[in-house]
């Protein structure tokens, strides 16, 4: 049996890689993909703890998180397409109208 802490460590590593991806990349699509990776890491944590505590709550929460992620990806990609179409760039440093 794999100890639960191994799954938690793997989830932490994946989450950290997602955070690093959001911080170092400028392409808006890659940033979005890193956010999805973070969501997946948290889902893995929930599933591992659901097995650890022998309750279904974790897995139900994973289902809810997946629904939220799907809706978020649809709306987020629509926004990304609208912004890229208007500004003609996928570099988020060029989307700086609100910058002081």
């Amino acid at each position, binding site marked *: 049996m794999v100890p639960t802490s191994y799954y938690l460590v*793997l989830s932490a590593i994946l989450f950290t890689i997602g955070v690093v991806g959001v911080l170092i990349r*400028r392409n808006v699509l*890659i940033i979005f993909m890193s956010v999805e990776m973070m969501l997946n890491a948290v889902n893995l944590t929930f*599933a591992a703890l*659901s097995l650890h505590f022998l309750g279904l709550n974790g897995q139900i929460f994973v289902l809810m998180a997946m629904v939220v992620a799907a809706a978020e990806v649809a709306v987020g990609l629509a926004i990304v397409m609208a912004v890229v179409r208007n500004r003609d760039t996928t570099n988020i440093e060029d989307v700086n109208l609100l910058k002081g």
Partner: protein
Amino acid sequence: MFLFIVFALIAIVAALGVILSRKPVYSALFLLLNFATLAALYIMLQAQFLAAVQIIVYAGAIVVLFLFVVMLIGGGELNAVDRETSRQVDKAAAISPRFLALLGWPRIAALVLAALLLAGVGYGLVTGQLHPGQGSAAAFGQGSVEAIGAALYTDYLLPFELTSVLLLVGMVGAVVLARRDA
């Protein structure tokens, strides 16, 4: 245990491939590999329904959406990598050409990882480690469709209905946002 190490390494290398690839298409395909590996890990966690939903929703819908958008807006290869990261990549390549070769061959890396994932899943199925029902008897059947369905339609009925409303709102929002100004 050995199977977990294999899947964990594939997931981590695929995640690194997502954030380090120069082209967004390669990042999307590494993301797909990451999701598929997570589905295998869900099966090891006695969450079979979650693994199926992960493949259907994440690997089958979200990654496809990403690929559509990459196809439509081009991805932008030149500004795909931050200038700072690109400078550091060139510095690292000057020190060790193998590092640049690793980054410059994402196809080979992805093929190796995918083959490893298939081999891992096959090995797990053949030796029975990926068969649901491994582990404690108390966890048997916990992640099955019946158990999740029973919980979803009795204890969690309100969140379930609210997620349907959320999906409707998301659908309307996506249609409105993607419309060209008439």
